[in-house]
């Protein structure tokens, strides 16, 4: 049935079109006595239409240009939000004025001449074949205009695409496109991005960061791009699978993301997100509800964000590769950056992927030393002798034996340093176990472990007279032995300050 209707409509359309055509031809033929006269009638009718079109076309063109003024690059809500963007907008406007003038002059001449020189009775065309002077003029004028635009364009282009020698001056980040999202990585405290290798990409290592490169250890990933206002930003742009393009409309930033070849873009944001929203509030286009399905939602300007979009066709999800870009004050940015946990520390540290598994990192040693010193200070100042205890959290033994693990030496060296600083300090080294296993064996093991620590200290030049070692077995639990966490808490080595 549907098919029949379609066929009938098509046939009808064809018939109507043919009849209209025939009718048109007949009326022209009937109203004129000769073919020539008929043509002249057509000429004047169509010539007039050319003039009508010219007026309507340019009129509507001007109207639309005014009506859509808020869509223009560099105007109203589309003002650039970056330093180089303002230069681009300036050159755009210069080009707009130049081409606009040419557009109006040539369109007017074209349609006006078509009307003015329509074939009329008794009028013959002039035989004008060429005019070399005119040709030279209209070769030179565009040539000079183009030269100016080329010079202007190159000047801005080469300032937008500078070579930057010292990367530490910049805020840096890396953006990696893949089907169909972006990964965002910041360099962390060292302000250096660690190496990546696509072969290392896995579910736990989405960017393929090479963890043996220590610059990677403080790099953090973010779910949105956060930038400080007024600071130069260098974005390193990469891709995992196919081409993508890093596009920040309001910042006039666009650069393809190419697998296997990083690209860069350097720019300076000039407007915070807050300032941007305030500006948008002036324009009617942004007064609409931010959620089109909910008329009571906040107006668009209140929720609008700077955005990262993909500008290179990358597959069926190309249109959905969005990330929010936030521009904030420098202080806010610094604060935010400090709060972000490093990807390595939260996701990789201690797992099988960690090349430093079984080793302490410098930051960790610093952290341990800090913890130790805090305990020591507290223990020295404590009044109650029972509180004068320093727990050696990072002194550990091989399972079931009294052999110190290699990593214990870092904290033990701290103890050596303490005893060398406080020349009169005397301590008791205590070993504790949990309640699993035989109590006597536990007692003996804790005694031997305490002695192992004592021996280490003696080997490192501490007078044995200042040290006593005692094993308490499972007699002094700190926590319940019913849970694994509790038992772990109870297996411990500590020392008590007996005398300062």
């Amino acid at each position, binding site marked *: 049935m549907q098919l029949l209707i379609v066929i009938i409509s098509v046939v009808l359309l064809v018939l109507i079109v043919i009849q209209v055509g025939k009718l048109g031809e007949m009326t022209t033929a009937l109203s004129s006595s000769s073919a020539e006269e008929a043509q002249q009638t057509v000429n004047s009718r169509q010539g007039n239409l050319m003039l009508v079109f010219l007026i309507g076309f340019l009129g509507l063109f001007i109207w639309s240009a005014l009506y859509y003024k808020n*869509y223009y690059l560099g105007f109203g809500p589309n003002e650039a939000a970056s330093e180089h963007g303002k230069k681009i907008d300036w050159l755009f406007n210069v080009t707009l004025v130049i081409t606009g003038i040419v557009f109006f002059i040539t369109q007017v001449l074209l349609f006006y001449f078509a009307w003015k020189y329509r074939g009329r009775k008794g009028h013959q065309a002039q035989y*004008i074949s*060429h005019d070399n002077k005119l040709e030279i003029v209209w*070769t030179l004028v565009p040539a000079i205009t*183009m030269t100016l635009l080329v010079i202007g364009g190159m000047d801005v282009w080469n300032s937008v*695409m500078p070579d930057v020698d010292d990367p530490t001056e910049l805020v840096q980040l890396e953006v990696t496109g893949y089907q169909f999202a972006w990964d965002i990585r910041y360099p962390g405290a060292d302000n250096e991005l660690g190496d990546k290798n696509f072969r290392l990409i896995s579910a736990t290592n989405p960017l393929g960061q090479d963890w043996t490169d220590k610059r990677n250890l403080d790099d953090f990933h973010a779910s949105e791009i956060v930038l400080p206002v007024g600071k130069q930003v260098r974005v390193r742009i990469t891709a995992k*699978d196919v081409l993508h393009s890093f596009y920040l409309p*309001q910042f006039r930033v666009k650069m393809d993301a190419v697998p296997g070849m990083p690209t860069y873009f350097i720019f300076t944001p000039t407007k915070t997100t807050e300032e941007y929203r305030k500006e948008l509030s002036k324009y009617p286009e942004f007064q609409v509800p931010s959620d089109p399905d909910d008329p009571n939602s906040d107006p668009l300007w209140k929720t609008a964000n700077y955005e990262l979009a993909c500008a290179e066709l990358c597959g069926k999800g190309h249109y959905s590769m969005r990330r929010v870009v936030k521009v904030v004050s420098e202080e806010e940015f610094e604060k935010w950056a400090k709060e972000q946990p490093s990807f390595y520390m939260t996701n990789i540290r201690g797992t099988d992927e960690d090349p430093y598994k079984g080793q302490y990192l410098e930051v960790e040693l610093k952290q341990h030393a800090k913890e130790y010193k805090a305990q020591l200070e507290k223990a020295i100042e404590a009044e109650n002798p029972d509180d004068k205890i320093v727990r050696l959290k990072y002194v550990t033994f091989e399972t079931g034996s009294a052999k110190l693990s290699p990593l214990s030496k870092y904290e033990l060296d701290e103890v050596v340093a303490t005893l060398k600083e406080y020349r009169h300090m005397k301590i008791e080294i205590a070993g504790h176990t949990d309640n699993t296993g035989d109590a006597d064996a536990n007692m003996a093991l804790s005694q031997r472990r305490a002695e192992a620590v004592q021996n280490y200290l003696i080997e490192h030049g501490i007078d044995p007279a200042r040290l006593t070692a005692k094993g308490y077995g499972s007699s002094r639990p700190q926590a319940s032995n019913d849970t694994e966490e509790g038992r772990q808490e109870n297996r411990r080595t500590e020392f008590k300050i007996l005398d300062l």
Partner: protein
Amino acid sequence: MATTTQEVSKHQIDQLIEEYGYDDHFHEHHHEGDKYQSGFIQKYIFSQDHKIIARQFLITGMIWGILGGLMSLIFRLQLGFPEGNMAWLKPLLGKWIIVNDGIGTLDPEFYYALVTIHGTVIVFFVLTAGLSGTFSNLLIPLQIGARDMASPFLNMLSYWFFFLASVVMFVSLFLSTGPFAGGWVAYPPLSALPEASSGSGAGMTLWLISLVLFVVSVLLGGINYITTVLNLRTKGMNMWRLPLTIWSFFITAIIGLLSFPVLAAGFFLLMFDRLLGTSFYLNEIFINGHALDRVGGSPILYQHLFWFLGHPEVYIIILPAMGLVSEVMSTHARKPIFGYKAMVYSIASIGFLSFLVWAHHMYVAGINPFIANFFIVFTLIIAVPSAVKVFNWITTIYGSSYRFNAASMFAVGFVSMFISGGLTGIFLGNAVLDIPLHDTYFVVAHFHVVMGVAAFFGMFAGIYHWFPKMFGRFMDETLGKLHFWGTLIGAYAVFIPMHYLGMAGVARRYYKFDNFDAFSHFAGINKFITIAAIITFVFQLIFVINFFYSIWKGRKMTSRNPWGSTTLEWTTPIHAGHGNWPGKLPAVQRWPYDYSKNGRDFIPQIEPQSDAEKDEFH
């Protein structure tokens, strides 16, 4: 005293040819009943006659034009009415319409396939084969006074390779994984890896095969056009007496011959990457959960190879249109084309410069920013010969006695479109302005106006003008004018608003815009564009109906030279047989633009110059 167009009668034409023409003894070889014309199949299907081949190119191109247009309507519906119910398209598109609770939505994968195939077929099949293939074939032998192409056999192969390319492309539309969906530029790695997109599987394989066949077609055609223009010009037809149509086809063929092989090379490397495990374009790729072993290539290399053709390609499309428009405009203005030599030089310099600008498509692709400087210079320089051409056309109309018909009106429309689209090119050619505008609707608007719509206008001007030469009948003028106004107004209504979208930063090739704050509030303008596109398409149907109706039922041609044209094609009989001229070949005595000279409406190229004329410029 002005003379009428019919003044030089059939009798006089024959007399002039007989008196001054060149006898190549063509008809002494008993061509009647020879292999070219014997039987229906040789005459109309595997024909080696350039006039038939031209019609084959035109009609195949028109079919693709309709298909490509329909594809654009479907994706325009998606963009204009993203919430609309497309369930009614289910009978046509099948599984590509996903129906949920009675609401049909277009599969994004198929949206991208439509965009891709629309671009590919309009650029290559319609505006290269349908435009240059049609008119180079029809006009080169007829306007230079040749019996046929230098190699009619290769010419026939040229069409049939195009036909094969068409068949392969058409078949790819029906694959269960869908046709290729990675954009008409087919950038790897998306186009190289089947796991990157379902259209990059069998769809891309067929796409590549189709386009390689197409390149073969273009090269066979191009070699023929160049050889024919250089070697088979009739007596007296020196290069400065060639109509501008021939100049533009000639330069176009040279551009094609130099650039299409580079595209083919690019495609072959892509095939190797797809089939043989090479990595010309692949490097450090992690896709679908695994890292690709093949490294060391560069996706940018493909872009260089592609655009080394891709940019000349837009001139391959627009130069023939320019030639057709020059010829049509001059004929109906009853006035010589203004600045003939300047026109030739500008065609040649556009052709030359077209090879030095390709990387302006790649300003933000990751090329060395320093290199961009050279491409800014050469790109903006192209504006100069283009401007010269525009000024020459406008001055051709100045002081004319313009005869309005569908052909001549489309010529005016062409100039208007070329101005509008050309000017926006000045923005995009400037690397720094390309940063915000690249891959936005500003680019879409720019190239559609300057090489899409403008080229179609040139093509329409050519079809209305030479239809009588092709079919011995006229197309309906009323419908032609209706078609013209509908297309002119419709095309501007579609593409001018796109510039505003582009300036506001809206990215192209988006299935929908609702999840971006920056792109989401343009629903009204998108709706308007879609409605305008549908209406414009309906006007194209008027053309199609007019075309096919007129082939059989149009007003019959009663005189050989209905437009009062000076060029040679109008000296052949109304139904010219094989060899074009029944007797001697016409000899050329003058340039092709003697309109309104010395009080005469026109002087055909075969009429000898008077003594006074011989002292003149030409």
